[in-house]
């Protein structure tokens, strides 16, 4: 039995805003085992980003407990337990692409040779070889997002937290990166927590899909989804795939409140 690496117990988070409190997370209890690929799916505003940010110690829960690798999220962050891919690329405009990918490596204090080889291999992985010396504004939005994925991978974390990393990409690139990510995951056995709006993407990638519902953000349903280790994109035509996709869709519908 693989070890539990992320464990949320009755997690609550309420933002105090000028228009009163916003209940972003309510009673979230979730265990994620080492090597799992978990997708968080749900309508906009249901707290997917917030949950990911709590794991990353970017947000403090107002109730319940969260533990990462048996530590508090803060300790895990200091131990560099995860790599985080934001919804936006968040590249530093004054750094070239290679310098952007190298940023976390500089912060970690790695030597120049290690940095160089990690930058090269990860830019290769996201098909950005040849763009090392470009500045972010010289790249399309999709390329920028790929650079930000390369930046998170370069840290070589045991855990990847990804917030809609492929949301802004076109279908073809998205398919390609889904395959790459799956290969990477199968090879390295990283734990991945992946936020998405796309049902096929979630079903294709995940071992479990967490369906969330809004106001307040909570877990509606958790769907098991293991389609075998070496699946290819063709699997999306198979009945098993479509069955799970249907299940997720039904879950999303049931969890969605239309009374607004």
């Amino acid at each position, binding site marked *: 039995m693989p070890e539990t690496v992320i464990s949320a117990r009755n997690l609550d988070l309420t933002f105090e805003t000028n228009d009163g409190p916003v209940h972003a997370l309510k009673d979230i209890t979730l265990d994620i085992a080492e090597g799992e690929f978990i997708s968080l799916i749900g309508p906009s505003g249901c707290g997917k980003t917030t949950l990911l940010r709590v794991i990353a110690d970017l947000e403090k829960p107002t109730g319940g407990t969260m533990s990462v690798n048996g530590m508090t999220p803060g300790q895990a*962050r*200091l131990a*560099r337990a995860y790599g985080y891919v*934001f919804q936006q690329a968040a590249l530093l405009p*004054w750094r070239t692409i290679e310098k952007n990918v190298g940023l976390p490596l500089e*912060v*970690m204090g790695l030597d120049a040779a290690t940095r160089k080889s990690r930058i090269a291999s990860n830019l290769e992985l996201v098909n950005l070889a040849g763009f090392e010396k470009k*500045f972010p504004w010289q790249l399309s939005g999709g390329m920028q997002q790929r650079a930000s994925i390369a930046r998170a991978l370069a840290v070589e974390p045991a855990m990847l937290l990804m917030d809609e990393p492929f949301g802004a990409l076109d279908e073809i690139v998205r398919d390609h990166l889904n395959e790459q990510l799956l290969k990477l995951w199968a090879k390295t056995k990283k734990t991945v927590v992946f936020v998405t709006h796309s049902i096929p993407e979630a079903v294709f990638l995940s071992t479990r899909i967490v369906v969330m519902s809004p106001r307040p953000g909570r877990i509606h349903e958790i769907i098991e989804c293991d389609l075998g280790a070496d699946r290819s994109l063709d699997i999306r035509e198979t009945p098993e795939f479509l069955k799970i996709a249907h299940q997720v869709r039904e879950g999303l519908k049931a969890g969605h409140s239309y009374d607004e």
Partner: protein
Amino acid sequence: MSERGFIQDRLVPVGSILMVILVIWYIAAYAMNAPFQRDFDRRTDVTRTGTEFLLATMSQPKPTMPAPHQVAENLWKNTLTVKPWSKRSLVYHSWITLSATLLGFAMGTALGVAIAIGIVHIPALDRSLLPWIITSQTIPILAVAPMIIVLLSAIGVTGLLPKALISTYLSFFPVAVGMVKGLRSPDILHLDLMRTYSATKLQLLWKLRIPASVPFFFTSMKVAIAASLIGAIVGELPTGAVAGIGSKLLAGSYYSQTIDIFAALIAGSIVAIMLVSFVDILGRFVNARMGAKQS
């Protein structure tokens, strides 16, 4: 910018304004010098035609308001026909003032940056220091300058440093204010990013806050270097300094050498334009190196 673009975009508008200024200046020179000339002519019993009278108002040795060509002639004589290191040369006096300006500017910039870094990192400083800094700038420099000069000369510090300190006093403020804004300019997203890397405060400063503040830095330095020049000139007034643009202004007013005063003023303006342009060009160069989109 193409050559034609430069002529149309810059030379024509700037040139037109210059023409307007010159015309107004000549009219003002005539208007202000005419009463004296009329008086003088009456006393010396000279009768002139209109044109002769007009020309006379433009060629008085100590006019109330010197005409542009008189100032130009004085500038020409005192920059190009004398050795640059001679006491009569405006280049020499400009250099004296410039060296105090640059020293004061360097100290002011360093002080401003240090204060800004302190304010951004230590909340107590943010609340306690900023009001004092703002108050310091409300005290008129003309009141402070003699105090600084006299106090320093009492403890034996004279020459370049007291003038430079007045420049520092005037120039640290825009840099401090601009840099506080610049160091706080990174978006939340980038701060979150650095947090996921568990970057130290020093890394955050060095890799995010300082690079993000560079455009603010150059904008505030443009203001600061012009203020430094004013500080250095003001610093030359109460000392009865023997050299520098300020001393030329002072000497000119003692002996009613209005042409000298104007020439010194123009020399000061030229130095100011050169300094500000230099900071501007340096800023453009650095911004381009940092990947800013060329506009």
